[in-house]
């Protein structure tokens, strides 16, 4: 579940189920099958032409050798005829290759776009539970790294694999048609090398995977050290950190050196096989020529054939490995797309109008547990609140205050019991209905990149600037907005110097715009200075007017006047009542309250 902070350093190694992943990839490509098919046809066509061309080249040389014989001269009409044919062949081959390339980029890019789109939509259909257990970095790396790897792998491997295979088979056929003795020699000479190459490829794959892994580890260590440098320094942890770094660095070096070296062997190996084949073909060819079995042109043609035969094999090997990484990445993408989604709610007929909701709420024997009812977090909880009341939720850190938010907002489904709003069971409301009844202002002020206006109105369109400014006036944002260079149209970016307090005010304004009968307020002002804190407090008070409010309280003094206080500890609601009642009980709440004055 929590596998360390190695967020981006995913190992693009082997897939768990290669053939399954490949099948899935092809199934997902079905929308594009016509384009893929045309692409394959073009690729095969191109390969065929690539094979025919050297055959014509040998015709050309045969014509030229005529000129070598004393007394004979070259027939230039024939020569030009052959040249025209060869030119047409290579030109059309190039055109076919171009066409195929264009088609495959189209297919792989649109495929990647659709995958990204699906992931983006999927995010909004997953239960929140998923995000409690998975890291943001992991999902992000699926959207970008993995999708890109799939797209690149597909565009590199799919057509190459088929066209090169076609090319190889074609070459073998052509060789055997031209001269079977020479063909046997050429094939045998090339095959010797491929066995060795396969071994090298397998080994270097292993080191490449190892390299990614070691790089991931050292990245994690670097990230940890850099971002915690103040502690590393004051605790004299440098020696410890260096020791670990050196060890990891050494391991990266080994993996780097091995993988680099082994993958570098491919090319010279190929060159050697090519040359070996060349000599073998020449020697056999010469014997045959001297015995007048073949013409010299055949030798030249075979020299090309040998080259054509050896190069596809290495390219096929390369495509296989890139198909493998694509499969591994694809597996991760589809794993995400196949995650269980939120409960289907198509049977629920929504007929909630938020303007008609008064704002009563009732918890009726609610039971809830995070992990499929094994251990209950909320055990049989009942409480009633009337419209306009103020309900405070208090408790020490980690007491499960956010659980209440999750249940109120229907982010999680309760195991049994019921939550009723104005007497209507939330079981009979869609999640969207429930959401529309609540305004939520959370502790982590979430702003997105966009203008201040976008951030305030969010997805509520059709609101005029005047109305926005009126709301800003109520929450005390007017001065801040006026100091911005472009007022409401100022862009907010991630590392802006908007203070925590101003962020809080902006999210409160966003809540005001939504104007719902219920309010959930996570009252956290620990990072805000005193003056802004007063402003935020005032804005929150304004927001609470006329709404049934749930306040997650951090400072006990502000909730003394709440109508109802829910005291939570270790996930359970341990006490309920008003401040006075709870103090009288002299239980957990009283203890908590008094502790703020203790030494």
């Amino acid at each position: 579940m929590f596998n360390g902070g190695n967020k981006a350093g995913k190992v693009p190694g082997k897939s768990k189920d290669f053939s399954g992943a490949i099948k899935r990839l092809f199934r997902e490509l079905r929308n594009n099958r016509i384009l893929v098919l045309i692409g394959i046809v073009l690729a095969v066509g191109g390969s065929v032409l690539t094979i025919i061309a050297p055959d014509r080249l040998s015709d050309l040389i045969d014509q030229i050798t005529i000129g070598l014989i004393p007394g004979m001269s070259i027939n230039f009409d024939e020569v030009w005829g052959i040249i025209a044919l060869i030119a047409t062949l290579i030109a059309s081959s190039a055109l076919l290759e171009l066409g195929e390339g264009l088609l495959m980029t189209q297919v792989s890019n649109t495929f990647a776009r659709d995958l990204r789109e699906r992931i983006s939509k999927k995010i909004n259909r997953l239960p929140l539970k998923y995000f409690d257990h998975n890291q943001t970095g992991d999902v992000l790396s699926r959207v970008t790294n993995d999708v890109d790897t799939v797209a690149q792998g597909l565009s590199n491997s799919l057509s190459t694999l088929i066209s090169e295979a076609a090319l190889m088979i074609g070459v073998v056929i052509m060789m055997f048609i031209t001269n079977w003795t020479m063909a046997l020699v050429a094939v045998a000479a090339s095959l010797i090398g491929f066995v060795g190459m396969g071994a090298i490829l397998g080994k270097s794959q292993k080191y490449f995977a190892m390299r990614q892994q070691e790089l991931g580890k050292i990245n994690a260590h670097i990230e940890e050290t850099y971002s915690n440098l103040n502690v590393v320094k004051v605790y004299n942890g440098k020696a410890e950190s260096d020791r670990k770094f050196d060890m990891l660095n050494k391991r990266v070096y080994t993996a780097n050196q091995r993988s680099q070296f082994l993958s570098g062997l491919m090319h010279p190996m190929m060159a050697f096989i090519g040359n070996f084949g060349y000599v073998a073909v020449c020697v056999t060819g010469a014997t045959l020529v001297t015995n007048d079995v073949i013409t010299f042109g055949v030798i030249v043609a075979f020299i090309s054939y040998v080259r054509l035969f050896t190069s596809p094999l290495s390219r096929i090997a390369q495509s296989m490995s890139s198909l493998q990484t694509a499969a591994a990445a694809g597996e991760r993408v589809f794993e995400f797309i196949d995650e269980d989604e939120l409960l289907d709610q198509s049977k629920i007929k929504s007929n909630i109008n938020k303007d008609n909701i008064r704002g009563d709420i009732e918890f009726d024997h609610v039971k809830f547990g995070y992990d499929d009812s094994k251990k209950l977090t909320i055990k049989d909880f009942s409480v009633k609140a009337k419209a306009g009341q103020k309900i405070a939720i208090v408790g020490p850190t980690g007491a499960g205050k956010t659980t209440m938010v999750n249940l109120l907002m229907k982010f999680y489904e309760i195991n049994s019991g019921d939550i009723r709003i104005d007497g209507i069971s939330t079981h009979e409301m869609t999640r969207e209905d429930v959401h529309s009844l609540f305004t939520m202002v959370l502790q982590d002020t979430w702003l997105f990149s966009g203008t201040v206006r976008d951030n305030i109105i969010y997805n509520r369109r059709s609101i005029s600037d005047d109305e926005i400014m009126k709301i800003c006036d109520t929450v005390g944002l007017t001065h801040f907005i006026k100091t911005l260079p472009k007022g409401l149209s100022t862009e907010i970016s991630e590392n802006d110097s908007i203070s925590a307090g101003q962020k809080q005010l902006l999210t409160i304004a966003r809540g005001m715009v939504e104007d719902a009968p219920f309010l959930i307020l996570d009252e956290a002002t620990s990072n805000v200075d005193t003056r802004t804190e007063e402003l935020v407090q005032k804005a929150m008070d304004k927001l609470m007017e006329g709404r049934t409010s749930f306040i997650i309280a951090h400072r006990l003094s502000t909730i003394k006047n709440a109508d109802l206080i829910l005291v939570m500890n270790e996930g359970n609601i341990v006490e309920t009542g008003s401040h006075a009642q709870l103090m009288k009980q002299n239980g957990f709440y009283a203890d908590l309250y008094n502790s703020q004055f203790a030494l």
Partner: protein
Amino acid sequence: MFKIFKNFHWKDLVFLFSGIILVAVQVGLELKMPDYMSEITKLVQTEGSEMSDILLNGGWMLACALGSFIATVGAGFCFATASARLSMNTRKKLFDKVESLDMHEIKKFSTSSLITRSTNDITQIQMFVAMGAQMLIRAPMTAIWAIIKISNKSWQWSTATGITVVVLLSIMFTVMAIVIPRFKRVQKLTDRVNGITRENLTGIRVIRAFNAEKYQEKKFSKTNNELTNTQLFTSRTLSVVSPIMYLAMNGLTVIIYTIGAYLISEATAFDKLTIFSDMVVFSTYAMHVIMSFLFVAFVLMILPRAQVSASRINEVMKTKISIKDGNFDDETAERGTVEFRNVSFKYPDAEDYLLKDISFRANTGETVAFIGSTGSGKTTLINLVPRFYDATEGEVFVDGVNVRDYKLKELHNRIGYVPQKAVMFNGTVTSNVAYGDNGCGKKSEETIKKAIKVAQAKNFVEKMDKDYKAHIAQGGTNVSGGQKQRLAIARAIARDPEIYIFDDSFSALDYKTDATLRHELKKHTGGATNLIVAQRIGTIMHADKIIVLDEGKCVGMGTHKELLKNCKVYKQIALSQLTKEELDV
């Protein structure tokens, strides 16, 4: 780029030079082969050649091929070793450098940028050296050698080859000129897609609460389409390259043969055979020449990226270290005292002072607290004690000795510092609490358990799977904020320092835990001095001395009671947190 090469150790240079020599050997052998090829061709063509001659030449050619193979493998080994060593050494140097930068410099570069520089950028350079450098050495060697070999064969062939090279290169560079700027755009758009997804993930509760899923999806779609379109454009443009290369190479072969046909028909009978074998050889060399130029072009294309990485690394390397180590590591007369004398601080390139004329003294065993609004300089002030920064003016003393005179290690041994944001390392509860070195050797299990108990972390630690050996993820993602803070405090306690520095380290704790923790701490570390930065009045109201900061200036100093009476700022802060009656308790 060349500055990076300074990180080659002399041993690596041996590898590098052997690599270069091996490449030269390999190129020589490679280019020797067409000679044998032409000899074989000639023999095959001539009536009555001895089979043994063909075999001999074939044997020599194979020997060359094998030699060239071995040389390439050797060169590959040398370059792989040299480049891997270069990246290892550079990474180490950079890591050391970053560790010694001060916090201001780190902020200036930003942590995430420093991380990319130490990882991604170094990988970039290694890739370049491993692939590019080899090509950059081999390609010109091959080109020059091949050109020498064929230059005196026939000017017609040379011209044809020259024109092909020029045409090919100009097409390549045009394509690159079109594509490279868009690559940058693709990078930017990828960042945006990332950004929107991150936004969606971090704000998932808000998005659902506002029923804004469609809104987010629309936003994503827009950028996604933009990204796809740009990518389509670049990959379409790039898909032109491979057919053109194919066309050029095959075209050139045909052209050479055509020219050959005319040359042969016009030559005297004796020359005909020579021209013929020259033609076959020439076409082979011509391919070498073209390939070499293409390789050089390719290297030139990946060079800018490596260069950017190199300059990013050098930028860090040449940053001057501002915190210099002192050499005092003796016993001191005082223990556990901190004194500021007229200390002012501003960043070197800033105009405004963050701290102005601060003076105070914390005696052995005293608790001194700092309070004030955000940006008032509390954190900056206490950061001067462990020398995260040095004071611009004035002096800071620890145990009566100026902090600048201490050996940093000695200074840090006296301090137990708990930062605002609790820091956790990948490891176990024990390894996190025992972290670092306090000059007294390895911390015993007993010390660690005791520290955890004092920090009020015993309960939850013992409930964890494998209790004291429980796994802690990087950044402490598997423990809550309050638990992290308690472990961070335990880490400071385990050091058994003379001076504790708590930079708002109690904020994630509830009142009750906060109070018990401070109570236990006092009992356990009676003699130690505490410097506490806090937001909550409750945390500090019993301190021996409270210093109220406002915009970098000290606006009040005294006990809680005194300050309530005579410090307006303090009173304001107090009233915002507690009611009047509560304050009078």
